[in-house]
């Protein structure tokens, strides 16, 4: 049986690369100004390079519209990259086309969405949501085996007593419980890579930490590989080993989470950290930003550093060309003219 072949502990040993992005770039076509006019493009992601590991969590941090979700959507094959690639277990995902392989890939790589109210079908019970993947992917037909599996899954995600929860409809659960059901669903499917797109931003503060703890547990105990997309860098610090800060589709600073949060070097990372609510600070502290300008619309023709317009330390070179990547400390990379 499949479950036996995919023995968890052998499958993803520590520090084994799961998803890897190389020079990932995507352009979206914009509406033409006239039907004969030239087609113009918006560059949503520009040359992203990252690796995800088993037992690890990669946090993708940035403001809305910076391309955080787009990167996860490419990984789930919703969008296709314009250039560059994502590979899974060393295999380019663009080459996965046969239905059997696609099915396997989609089982392995699952997404968790921001809105737990919209991601569960309101007409079906929790049992239905969790039973389907077990039936489809694992062919479980034995009634008692099914019950055991369901109960095990719900216990793992902290929804007890399982028997009561199974018969409930999504509207009878709170936001945090629904998000737990959804994480349970990824467990039922047997996903190894979980792309969580702002899974806690719609939850209450008191419930948020519980979901984060659950994700931590899934990561540590079951070896899941997480991508945690968020704009809250404080929660990223809580669960992620690696962090990458995106601005306008560009990686500006990335590496070890503690390095990034405790010793931020890029002006944008510094701004992001200064803006995080912190009881020990005052609302009147001035933000280290030059002017409050909107994020630029990046196109394939744009040049320079995307942050140059807002950067308080911008130099002449910043508007000319994109800086090279530099490793300023072990596991701490930056793309900024100040460090060239």
């Amino acid at each position, binding site marked *: 049986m499949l479950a036996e072949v995919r023995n968890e502990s052998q499958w993803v040993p520590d520090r084994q690369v799961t998803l890897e992005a190389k020079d990932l770039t995507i352009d979206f076509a914009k509406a033409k100004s006239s039907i004969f006019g030239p087609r113009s493009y918006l560059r949503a992601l520009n040359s992203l390079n990252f690796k995800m590991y088993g037992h690890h969590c990669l946090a993708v941090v940035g*403001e*809305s519209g910076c391309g955080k979700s787009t990167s996860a959507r490419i990984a789930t094959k919703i969008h296709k990259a314009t250039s560059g690639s994502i590979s899974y277990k060393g295999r380019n995902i663009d080459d996965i086309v046969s239905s059997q392989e696609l099915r396997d890939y989609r089982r392995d790589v699952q997404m968790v969405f921001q809105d737990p109210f919209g991601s569960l079908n309101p007409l079906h019970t929790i049992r239905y949501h969790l039973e389907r993947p077990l039936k489809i992917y694992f062919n479980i037909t034995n009634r008692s085996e099914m019950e055991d599996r369901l109960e095990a899954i719900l216990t793992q995600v*902290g929804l*007890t*007593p399982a028997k009561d929860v199974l018969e409930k409809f999504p509207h009878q659960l*709170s*936001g*945090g*419980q629904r998000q737990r059901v959804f994480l349970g669903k990824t467990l039922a499917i047997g996903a190894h890579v979980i792309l969580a797109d702002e899974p806690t931003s719609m939850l*209450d*503060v*008191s*419930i*948020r*930490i*519980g979901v*984060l*703890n659950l994700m931590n547990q899934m990561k540590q105990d079951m070896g899941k590989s997480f991508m945690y997309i968020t*704009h*809250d*860098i*404080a*929660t990223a*610090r*809580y669960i992620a080993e690696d962090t990458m800060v995106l601005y306008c589709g560009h990686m500006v600073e990335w590496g070890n989470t503690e390095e990034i*949060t*405790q010793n931020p070097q890029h002006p944008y990372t510094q*701004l*992001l*950290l200064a*803006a*995080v*609510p*912190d*009881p*020990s*600070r*005052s*609302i*009147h502290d001035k*933000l280290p*930003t030059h002017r*409050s300008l*909107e994020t630029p619309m990046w196109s394939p023709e744009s040049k320079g550093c995307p942050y140059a317009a807002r950067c308080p330390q911008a130099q002449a070179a910043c508007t000319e060309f994109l800086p090279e990547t530099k490793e300023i400390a072990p596991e701490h990379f930056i793309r900024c003219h100040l460090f060239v």
Partner: protein
Amino acid sequence: MSALIEVKDLCVDYITLNGRVRAVNNVSFTIGEGEILGLAGESGCGKSTIAYALMRLHRPPALISGGQILFEGKNVLDFDDETLRQFRWKDTSMVFQSAMSCLNPVKTIEYQFYDIFKAHNMITNRQESIERAKELLRIVDIPEGRLFDYPHQFSGGMRQRVVIAMALALKPKLLIMDEPTTALDVVIQREILQKVYELKQQFNFSVLFITHDLSLMVEFCDRIGIMYSGQLVEVSDSKAILQQPLHPYTFGLGNAFPTLTGELKVMVGIPGTPLDLSNVPSGCRFAGRCFKASDQCHRVEPALIPQAERGQVACHQPLPLPALFAESDTLLNDCNDRLQESRDVG
């Protein structure tokens, strides 16, 4: 500081098929002139219901079933329709959570300003309205030239600032902000709150600020009220509320968000789920989730009473000053143990 608005024993009920559900239960507080009061709590604890009640925006099945709301000494609940119309926006205005949906998508920003001024007889002609609207846009840092744009042409943060400019259009004395920045990212959130604070200093209005982000609230507010299932459980100075929490619920909230600095600790949050308001047990409403709950807590409902030189709290066993903890972590460990126990039992 004299009180601008005084709320006494406010009760709001929702009428459902299974009887009345009391969403706000005997809540009393005051907001001084030029003061920023924060209300924090989980979803469904009645924060927004209070905000709506202050402006009497509730419609059936919601019903204000008791208490008084004294605005400059006059009871808002006794206002007739015309007085109420004048009171709204001119005396008290509100900024809602989603700026996307409170602007009319088919009218320009200019028209929407004009609409406000016209309804309150503030202007004689359109040109005057345009002048005033431009000035308002200037104070929230939006270029005047954008006045004739439609809402969809603005970004989320700008739309929220337009909404704030509109709320301030008639120079209200009280501004109610119901989760004004929840949909925005942190940088824009901070910029907007800094702007609101600046304007508050300039025009000296009071603010009722509602959110569930306690750390943001500590930075922004003067005083903070913590709500739990329709009741105010603690009111304290904002600086004291995280450092010296009185109510175990406040303590739990304070330990529910990870910090950016300092040592990384395992956080516990608050075990259990919020109370079902249609089935309220006797005694303290938080007792079922509280790590300090005793027999008394399950029997007798505590009242909100002032503590010596600290805030007000509704708890039979308010927490001692942190200096009295042998180690501040003991309490957290207590919490952890209890959580573990509840899991084992489950």
